[in-house]
């Protein structure tokens, strides 16, 4: 038994007397340390802060007119007539438009990602903990929805309802929760047989308490990591939808829509309409993926025990 327990918990060695003057550090604090050890995660975080800062604070310093078209100044190249990134086919300043589009993309991405994660976590945790026919029924719903191509559904829905920012959030959130639901259900299946859940039941605790206090907090590593990927995905979904012409209607903008507009100009040499939104999308998705990697390490309790 002895070597077994050693192997399982290498760092829980009997070398930390309870009364020694070791500073007590909380789990969050320890997690932060591990997160900060991951360079890429810090790069991702920096990138996100930078992009968000430019999109939301930039317009305060760089005033442009993104409502009225200016047909006297279409397709100006970068640097011409005081437009650092040029203008597009209807005369909007490209840099200003990038900031405006970024606002939509980031808001929709974050909100839809969070909505999908919250919904999926609750659904998965309840299904996995309940088990039996409840689990079967709940997961068959997920399977059924997953079997329909999401792009097809998006197109259908977008044709029925008028796209707006809040509508986009609901539509994307309503379909993106399937992935987290499956992941969390898998976690919940193993977590519910853990002894601390049994111990709680032995004290007379209910299933709701088990889900709330034990299953969800212990699945939080999976959940938060997945949430960052969900955000990245949602930003891409907005881009797809706009690319297909189902995004928010003009004069509102988003990066995906700008990209699709720019694509029409590929052969006319207006590269400044194509690359900036494309690069912006790549950077924000990359930033969220890096942050997700870092959070995964931060929530991996075993890494902290060494």
């Amino acid at each position, binding site marked *: 038994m002895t070597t077994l327990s050693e192997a399982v918990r290498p760092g829980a060695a*009997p070398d*930390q007397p309870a009364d020694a003057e070791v500073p007590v550090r909380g789990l969050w604090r320890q997690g932060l340390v591990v997160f900060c050890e991951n360079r890429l995660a810090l790069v991702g975080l920096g990138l996100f802060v930078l992009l968000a800062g430019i999109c939301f604070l930039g317009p305060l310093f760089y005033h442009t007119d993104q409502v009225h078209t200016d047909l006297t100044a279409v397709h100006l190249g970068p640097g011409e007539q005081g437009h650092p990134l040029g203008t597009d086919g209807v005369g909007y300043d490209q840099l200003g438009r990038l900031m405006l589009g970024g606002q939509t993309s980031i808001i929709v991405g974050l909100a839809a990602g969070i909505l999908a994660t919250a919904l999926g976590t609750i659904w998965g945790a309840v299904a996995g903990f309940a088990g039996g026919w409840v689990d079967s029924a709940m997961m068959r719903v997920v399977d059924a929805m997953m079997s329909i191509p999401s792009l097809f559904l998006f197109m259908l829905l977008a044709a029925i309802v008028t796209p707006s920012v809040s509508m986009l959030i609901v539509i994307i959130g309503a379909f993106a929760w399937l992935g987290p639901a499956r992941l969390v259900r898998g976690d919940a299946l193993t977590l519910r047989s853990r002894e601390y859940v049994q111990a709680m039941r032995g004290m*007379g605790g209910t299933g709701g308490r088990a889900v709330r206090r034990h299953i969800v907090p212990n699945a939080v590593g999976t959940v938060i990591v997945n949430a960052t990927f969900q955000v990245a995905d949602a930003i891409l979904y907005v881009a797809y939808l706009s690319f297909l012409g189902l995004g928010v209607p003009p004069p509102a903008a988003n990066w995906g829509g700008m990209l699709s507009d720019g694509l029409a100009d590929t052969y006319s040499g207006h590269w400044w309409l194509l690359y900036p939104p494309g690069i912006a999308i790549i950077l924000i998705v990359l930033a969220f993926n890096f942050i997700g990697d870092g959070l995964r390490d931060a929530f991996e309790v075993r890494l902290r025990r060494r």
Partner: protein
Amino acid sequence: MSESTGRHTPAAGGVQPLLELRDLDTDIALRRGTVHALDGVSLQVMPGETLGVVGESGSGKTMTALSIMGLLPPGGRVSGGQILFEGRDLRSLPADEVRRIRGVRMGMVFQDPLTSLNPTMRIGAQVGEPLRVHERVGRAEARERTIEILRRVGMPRPERIVDNYPHELSGGMRQRVAIAMALVCSPRLLIADEPTTALDVTTQRQILELIDDLREEFGMAVVLVTHDLGVIAGRADRVAVMYAGRVVETAATTELFRSPRHRYTEALMEALPESAIRESGEHARLYSIPGLPPDLSRPLTGCRFAPRCRHATDDCRTTEVTLSAGGHQHACLHPVPAGPAAPVNLPAPVRVEAVPDPARPAAGPGEPAAGPVLSVRDLVKNYTAHGRGLLRRTAGQVSAVAGVSFDVGPGETFGLVGESGCGKSTVGRLAVGLEQPTAGQIMLDGTDIAGLAGRERRRMHRQVQLMFQDSYAAMNPRMRVDAILAEPLDIQKVGGTAERRARIATLLDQVGLSRRVLERYPHEFSGGQLQRIGLARSLALQPRLIVGDEPVSALDVSIQAQVLNLMRDLQRELGLAYVFISHDLSVVDYMADRIGVMYLGKLVEVGPARDVVRAARHPYTQALIDAVPTVTPNAAAARDGMTIRGELPSALNPPTGCRFRTRCPLAQDICETEPPLAGDAHQVACHFPLRPESTAASAPAGATA
């Protein structure tokens, strides 16, 4: 095997040691620093000898074995000293040759036979692999020799077993396969690292005897690494005791157990429950070594045991102590005086003498006025086994518990022993309401818990609490200790914030922990501390009964003693009743007032602890008692009692009648009918009890019919 004891004297002139470690240092680099796992370890193994290496977890005994085999974990490396095998230093030979020596001349058996075998390879392919790698023999010949070696390790039908996969074999059989794998190249040295720790006592005995026989047959030396002093006492020629990365004492086995010299060895032996019973009667307190082993990643000076030693002086903390010369070596400045005098009558400031406890229902007719706290009647629990395939048709019923009845009185400890798979844990889980019985009654204070629902059921949980084997697994790793201890109060809606805080403070005092632990997380504690926190949580609701499912099995001897003492103190203070479930007969013997022995879902014997252990009536109980390794050297040598062979039958299709009859040496035709549990205080379910119920049996008549 007794004649082999002491056959080789360590300093026999002229004979070159097979393996010699000289000042071996091993470091392991971890994230938080470097752990100096071994510090100047020197050992000798003579040809044909069994060397026992004993120590608690973290003492470096496994690291010694892994250093010899070159199997150190990531970050580990041998940083100094020599490993001489047949006179050649493995550290200075070319890698290719070392690999051959380790592969052919040495064999290793690991603790867990489940994880040391590859589940996707057939037995034959695994056992024959070293032959194909090192001797480059053909497929057919490898198979031939594999069958031969499997036969020699006592596998039934080896020509069929070779084509099986590991999951088709039982734990004992897997360990035999692992041994066969180690022996297939006829090594000169076998290193067995806790070879029987994961096995039941009866299987353990079979495996240890097998290793002993094979040693003689192959003329090889064995290094037996274990934490269990009892295993060493019966099997090894010489013993090396390790503590905190150093060898603190080596001597011939009989010599060491008769008169240990190092204070650590002495303390370790006193901490064994069986020695407490032997020396001071049933209700003595165990000697517990205070404190914890040192942190090996920090620089240490002086004797490493000094901070926990009751004989330590200032010298011990400052001077480096080296092993003394001679046959019985020890590294202690104030050793136990030599000679056969029992080492108990020394000044022992920590030891509390046996206190007669008033709360405990003393032997003799107690107060029958108070009814039993827990009363179990004809308890049955079947699990449905599903067949394979899509429809998962019911393939049968696994009979986990089959008609168990017993009572537990207030303030009493009822011990439940049996091997793994006998249903003892299931009984415990049923008793605390974690599972629903298939049939039968569980009465808690006279109320049948099956009939309770909603609020009443929740209140029922206040009366009875479960204590787990691994408290770490039983605590949510993301909750701080204050939240963990408050949870039962929160669930049962007891008191307000201030009251709860006061209650938690009281609990911590009761289990002997400081308030500082409240802000910490479970992974920051050692095993013994976690078990204290677990106990505190069980006590939070002031239950009348605590069901302990192997509560000390994962702990080292010295820590185990601390927890057992604490459990007894709390019982006396609070008048708790315990159901103490364990596979370890000596621990149950020490803790329990009455013992129930389970075999394959049935209670085969119930009686007062003393009577069951010293005058067993059921053949199975006797076999269990005989199989337990003991540190008493004479008892270890002269052991010819009841031996059972073979494997536990499947609970999916248990034998009819007496379930033990398939393995019982006394079984006859009548055993196909089920024997009732008969007797007054000391009951047995056997047609041929080994001895009549002793007339002097004087226990509270709480036993059931």
